[in-house]
């Protein structure tokens, strides 16, 4: 008798909840403007996020999928990609951890400098580390050949490993430092007070609390390594990888089906890692961000650890500096490796291709506007108690799991046959929606900081839904909008993995031109154009910084 009773009791509890939910939905959707925006946004996300992915997955037939194990080259590429993922993820996370540790200890000399230097690879175009290391450590390398007289070959998996470590450790550093920073110093003091020595505190408190952050960092780095196209295409040489294989299939053999198969294979591990990060690791973060800066200093760092960290950070910082120095030096050197005299000749050559830079800027601006607008709108919609807002949220973060080459192939399959196929609109849309997760998450976080009562105060004083949006949310979200625009713009201007698939004959964009130059050994002009791209990037960061500082008069108080 107990069971039926329990079940009917359960139903009684559920009923009023369902009724209340429907009431809420009815009241919210009673606002026609909101409902239309919701439907329009959902349709846009469906078309530009879901549909291209869907096209990739259904393009090859089941038989094509089943034939994958028979292709030795693909198995080899998959195996290589997984090997690089393991190697580079471990090394980048270890370096990132050392940097994160070093930059969060107040008593570590030069910690601000290390943090600044470690951020540099994040702003570099995605092929730049590989390019610079060819200049530095390649057969004509400044260091390997001219200074050390070595016959080094950087092409291959070991070169790629070094490059990916330097390119992706900053990601790990940022994530781990965020968690380490959030560890309340009073916990460390409490442990000291209870009798733990410095080493024990570090092991049992600081690092133990940062464990979920380290796991999260590894997953994010792993996704980036798997999807890394720009470095791989330049330095991997004859070493087949999934990310580059898709490009070779399509460009070299016009084999669209093969390209779709390869990127579909690449999608499995990236989506798995992405889901793992989102639903498992991110829920295990112990540290609480209170937003209230703690004034207590952290306990001092054991000297061995302190100076060990300084040594490692110095070495890695040097390698980071070489990335920038190498490219800038390359832009002014007559013939790299043979004639070290200075010249401006490469800049003349680069200036001839300046049109490609302008079209990059145009596409980037377009992508930035789309990313910024969609980010803020989706963030606003998911903050309402709307039905299916979880779906909207998922579609807005999903692109984070998709490798650039996957998006590239997806947009080719989805839009090439349509009237807009081959236009800059497709390219801009691809870049815009691929960068949506960053803008969306930033806007969402910002919205969460705005207390619900601020909106209620406006309503209480007589504001309608639209007036609330205009008077309260838009002014408070301007910062998020500008930042989303800037991130999307910079990444669009420096992108290669999507651009390379979607660029139509006759079109030019800077990164595509540079890549061609590098592959044809026109290093000087490639370096000069890359330097211009860097200047553009840093100029946009500066402008954004000023713009955000001006438009937002107050920090997020209230």
């Amino acid at each position, binding site marked *: 008798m107990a069971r039926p009773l329990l079940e009917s009791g359960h139903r009684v509890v559920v009923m009023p909840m369902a009724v209340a939910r429907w009431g809420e939905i009815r009241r919210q959707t009673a606002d026609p403007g909101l409902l239309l925006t919701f439907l329009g946004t959902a349709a846009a996300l469906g078309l530009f996020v879901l549909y291209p992915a869907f096209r990739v997955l259904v393009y090859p037939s089941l038989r094509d999928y089943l034939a994958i194990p028979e292709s030795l080259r693909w198995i080899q590429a998959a195996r290589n990609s997984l090997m690089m993922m393991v190697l580079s993820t471990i090394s980048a996370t270890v370096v990132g951890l050392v940097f994160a540790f070093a930059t969060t200890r107040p008593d570590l000399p030069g910690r601000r400098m290390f943090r600044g230097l470690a951020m540099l690879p994040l702003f570099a175009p995605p092929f730049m580390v590989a390019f610079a290391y060819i200049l530095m450590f390649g057969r004509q390398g400044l260091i390997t050949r001219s200074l050390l007289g070595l016959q080094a070959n950087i092409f291959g998996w070991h070169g790629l490993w070094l490059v990916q470590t330097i390119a992706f450790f900053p990601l790990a550093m940022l994530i781990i430092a965020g968690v380490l920073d959030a560890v309340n110093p009073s916990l460390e003091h409490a442990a000291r007070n209870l009798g733990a020595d410095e080493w024990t505190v570090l092991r049992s408190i600081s690092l133990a609390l940062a464990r979920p952050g380290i796991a999260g960092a590894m997953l994010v780095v792993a996704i980036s390594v798997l999807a890394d196209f720009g470095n791989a295409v330049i330095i991997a040489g004859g070493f087949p990888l999934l990310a580059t294989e898709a490009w070779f299939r399509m460009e070299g053999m016009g084999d669209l089906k093969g390209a779709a198969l390869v990127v579909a294979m690449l999608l499995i591990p990236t989506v798995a890692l992405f889901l793992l990060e989102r639903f498992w690791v991110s829920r295990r973060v112990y540290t609480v961000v209170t937003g209230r800066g703690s004034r207590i200093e952290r306990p001092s760092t054991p000297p061995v650890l302190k100076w060990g960290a300084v040594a490692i950070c110095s070495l890695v910082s040097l390698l980071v500096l070489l990335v920038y120095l190498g490219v800038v030096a390359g832009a002014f050197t007559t013939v790299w490796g043979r004639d070290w005299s200075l010249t401006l000749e490469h800049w003349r050559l680069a200036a001839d291709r300046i049109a490609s830079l302008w079209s990059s800027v145009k596409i980037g601006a377009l992508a930035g506007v789309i990313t910024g607008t969609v980010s803020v709108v989706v963030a606003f919609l998911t903050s309402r108690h709307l039905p299916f807002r979880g779906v909207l949220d998922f579609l807005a973060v999903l692109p984070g799991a998709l490798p650039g080459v996957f998006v590239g192939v997806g947009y080719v399959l989805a839009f090439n046959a349509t009237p807009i196929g081959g236009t800059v609109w497709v390219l801009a849309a691809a870049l815009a929606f691929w960068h949506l997760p960053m803008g969306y998450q930033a806007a969402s976080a910002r919205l969460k900081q705005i207390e619900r009562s601020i909106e209620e*105060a*406006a309503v209480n*004083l007589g*504001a309608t839904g639209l007036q609330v949006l205009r008077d309260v949310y838009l002014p408070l979200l301007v910062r998020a909008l500008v930042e989303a625009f800037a991130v999307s713009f910079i990444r669009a201007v420096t992108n290669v993995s999507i651009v390379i698939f979607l660029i139509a004959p006759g079109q030019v964009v800077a990164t595509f031109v540079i890549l061609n130059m590098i592959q044809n050994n026109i290093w000087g002009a490639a370096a000069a154009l890359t330097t211009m791209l860097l200047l553009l990037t840093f100029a946009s960061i500066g402008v954004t910084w000023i713009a955000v500082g001006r438009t937002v008069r*107050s*920090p997020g108080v*209230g």
Partner: protein
Amino acid sequence: MNRAHVSVQDITKRFGPTVAVDGVSLDVEEGSFTTLLGPSGCGKTTLLRMVAGFHHPDQGDIFLRGIRVTDIPAHRRNTAMVFQEYALFPHMTVGENVGYGLRLRRVSADEATRRVEQVLELVGLAGQQRKFPHQLSGGQQQRVALARALVVEPEVLLLDEPLSNLDAKLRVRVRSEIRQLQQQLGKTTLYVTHDQEEALAISDRIAVMNRGRILQLGTPLQIYHHPVDRFVADFVGLANFLEGEVSAPGQVRMEGVSLTVPDGALPGRRVTVVLRPEAIRLHARPPEEVANVLRGYVTAASFLGTLARYWVDAAGRHWIVDVPSPGEGLLSGEVYLEIPRDRIHLLTET
């Protein structure tokens, strides 16, 4: 007809399986200051928010001056609210914050400027229009929130724990300022707090709430001296509770002691005697010719400035006794408790 300014009739609000407000009715007279008092989760804020229109009641109705407003959306009710966290718009100046409601009401710019000036003067912030909220102290932000609510001349002023973010001293000062302002303007006010002292100090009437219901509605004096049940007596102020049985008219017998009490309860009934700590007198020697004297021992004493608090063991119980601040030293050892008959409040068990 119901002549109340704000009238809440038989309101129920559920959130999922929990019943936040359970069939509450309340009338607020024009110009009165009514406080909803209760522990967190008792439904007081939910009730206030239903008056503002932020929640729609599942049952029951709300009337403003006899007009049913239950289905009128929040932005079209003239029920300005002061929020617990102030909810000032961080991107607007003080002047813009206070003038926002006027802007929405399409008040002309000149008149708006004048009224903002006036109300800021009223709350003691004259000339601060150009500052941003984050440049103000907590107390000043609080006043801006109050000014923003008052400037639109609301039907009723709603305040949701407006003082909880202020430090203790400021809290006392601002609460008397709010009360003065309310009396000066004659504004009908509904106030939510969990602080019983605040409620006693500020209100015309207090509604003590628990578990979604109003347990007692009355003046501060009624609530304090004649609580209807043990919860109210315990929540508002400190009390000694003694359970016993009425042995004869005006007599309650309990284990170890018998007390002379006010008449009223029928013999044989189980009753709870409620005694406020300050109602008990403490003597070093047995007082003469008085009833209800118990011999006890001081187990602890604490000097609180305006009074001294004693923990006394007497008649097999622990007693709390408050004595107006003594000029000389505190009592210790053997003492005598005198319990004046007319200070005893009886709760009849139901």
